[in-house]
């Protein structure tokens, strides 16, 4: 791995954390999904390391709770989905993917509850959080639709 690659990974990890913290006061409105999408399209496999930095730093900042277990897989699921459509550059398409991801975020987060309290607990956890998921999905859709193109061009320059 080149020094430039390491610098990009560190910088993107820091940007993800900074933006997550900056938007933490707005429940379910975040830029992390969009940046994971952009990072996967532009920095490709480096995103695996970028996410590792992001997840570790989030754990240091907020402490290691059940939510952190979610973080261990939830952002990698988005990364994996993005790799399936790595040649797609339509902001409408990525707004849809980001919106869908926001809508199913609570469902994905409920998975550890199956092991803790059974399917009933996981289902209850998911159902009461559905209004948050709908907000998350709509916010992700709008944010990605508006910011995908400009941020893509900025981050793409970093990769040259």
């Amino acid at each position, binding site marked *: 791995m080149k020094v430039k690659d390491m610098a990009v990974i560190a910088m993107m990890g820091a940007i993800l954390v900074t933006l997550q913290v900056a938007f933490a006061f707005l*429940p*379910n409105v975040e830029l992390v999904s969009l940046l994971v999408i952009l990072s996967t399209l532009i920095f490709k496999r480096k995103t695996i390391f970028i996410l590792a930095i992001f997840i570790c730093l989030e754990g240091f900042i907020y*402490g290691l*709770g059940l939510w952190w277990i979610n973080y261990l897989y939830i952002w990698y699921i988005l990364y994996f989905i993005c790799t399936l*459509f790595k040649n*797609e550059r*339509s902001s*409408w*398409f990525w707004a*849809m*993917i980001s*919106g*869908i991801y926001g*809508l*199913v975020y609570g469902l994905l987060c409920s998975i550890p509850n199956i092991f803790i*309290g059974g399917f*009933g*607990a996981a*289902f*209850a*956890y998911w*159902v*009461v959080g*559905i*209004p*948050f*998921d*709908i*907000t998350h*999905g709509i916010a992700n*859709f709008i944010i990605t639709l508006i910011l995908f193109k400009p941020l893509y061009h900025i981050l793409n320059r970093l990769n040259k």
Partner: protein
Amino acid sequence: MDKKLSNKKIIASASVLIVILLALFFVYHNFFPKGTEGEKNITVTVITPDHDPTEIKIKTNAEFLRQALDEKNLVQGTMYGDFLMVEEVNGIKAEEGWWWSLTKEGLMLETGVDSTPILDGDHYEFTLTEIN
């Protein structure tokens, strides 16, 4: 060709998005816990490590626990959307590293105060618990 393929992907993803959105509305409408009308007598016990448990009896027509607790001004906290994250119970604040665990007759609830329907004779416990 690429443009056509891209348009197909957009239409397919839009369809998935709409189907998921409708499914969420359906699940929420049909499975979100429902309250019942009528007068209820419930008991709330506040348990902390430093004091004897405090038992509070509430006579209410509320359908959900939050309304019943608010009638006695028992809980304070931060709102996340429509849901209250309980930070203070009966004037006792959970300091950093502590949280208020909510149980019903000793069993951990799967719902928060806003989404817990109450029945006559219910017994709830708020326990000040240290985060491990």
